């Protein structure tokens, strides 16, 4: 009797879980929003300036990165490390 009683309770419990609300999403839409903050604007300016001063990609990878970081820092008003 006890076994039958507990089996019935388990059956009800699992049934209620399986009947949980399932929502189907039709045609999910993903919206891309661009966050245009100061750093992004400065980064774009840095790349444009780099292309202007080095149109043939002759700068070394390291120098180009140092330049890029320096430009972004200056653009954002952060003090640049001066040449020694």
């Amino acid at each position: 009797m006890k076994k039958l009683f507990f089996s019935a309770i388990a059956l009800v419990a699992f049934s209620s879980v399986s009947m949980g609300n399932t929502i189907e999403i039709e045609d999910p839409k993903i919206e891309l929003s661009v966050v245009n903050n100061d750093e992004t604007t400065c980064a774009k300016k840095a790349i444009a300036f780099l292309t202007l001063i080095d149109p043939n990609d002759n700068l070394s990878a390291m120098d180009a990165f140092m330049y890029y970081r320096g430009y972004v820092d200056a653009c954002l008003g952060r003090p640049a490390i001066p040449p020694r």
Partner: protein
Amino acid sequence: MKKNKLLVILFFNIFFLNIALSQKNGKVVYEIKSIDFVPKEQNSEVDEMIEKAKKQTFILLFNEKNLSNFEMVNTMSKEENPMNDFLEKMAAIRFTCNFTFFSDNNQNKNYYLYSDGTIVHDNSQKKWLISKETKEIDGYLCYQATHKYEYLARNNKMKERIITAWFAPSLPYSFGPKNYNGLPGLILELQDWDTTFLATKIELSDKEIVIDLPKGKTITQEEYERKVLSGN
């Protein structure tokens, strides 16, 4: 009579050569002779950067201990001006020299001191190809030498750059601007990419010029590039 004349000439040659050789210390001022770069579009910041580069001055020191030091004369403004400081620094990276260089020719050791305080050590020697071409620079007979090297460009391709130097054998000091040394004479003019350095003042002395090599932890050029490119 002819014999006496020859003896006198020989005597003076030996006399002045001894003076030159006894003056093993020197200070050379390099200025920018020209920058052969024209941007495709008009841009006031680029123009200002080029003007700053053209005004940059450098000092080369060398001494009887075979040490040398090359660095820019500091032209930073007294007032804090991020954009001005940036243009000065970028002018150095793009057109002139953004490091202070030390060499110990006895030990074949080179040191590069960057503005972020990093000391890079390098023991490579420049391989020069000396040609028969000559020209006179400020009264000194100079010979042409070229040095080729490969490097990783910003488009991730290996590129080759040729450096052209004019050195004076009558100034028997194997030093020059930036990190270019190893020629049998002082480099008086050097073309690196679109910039030409020119020695505008040479002071030789028998009084020792003290050059202190940088002290502290050093890393290799590869390690420094990895550090910079990782954003650290």
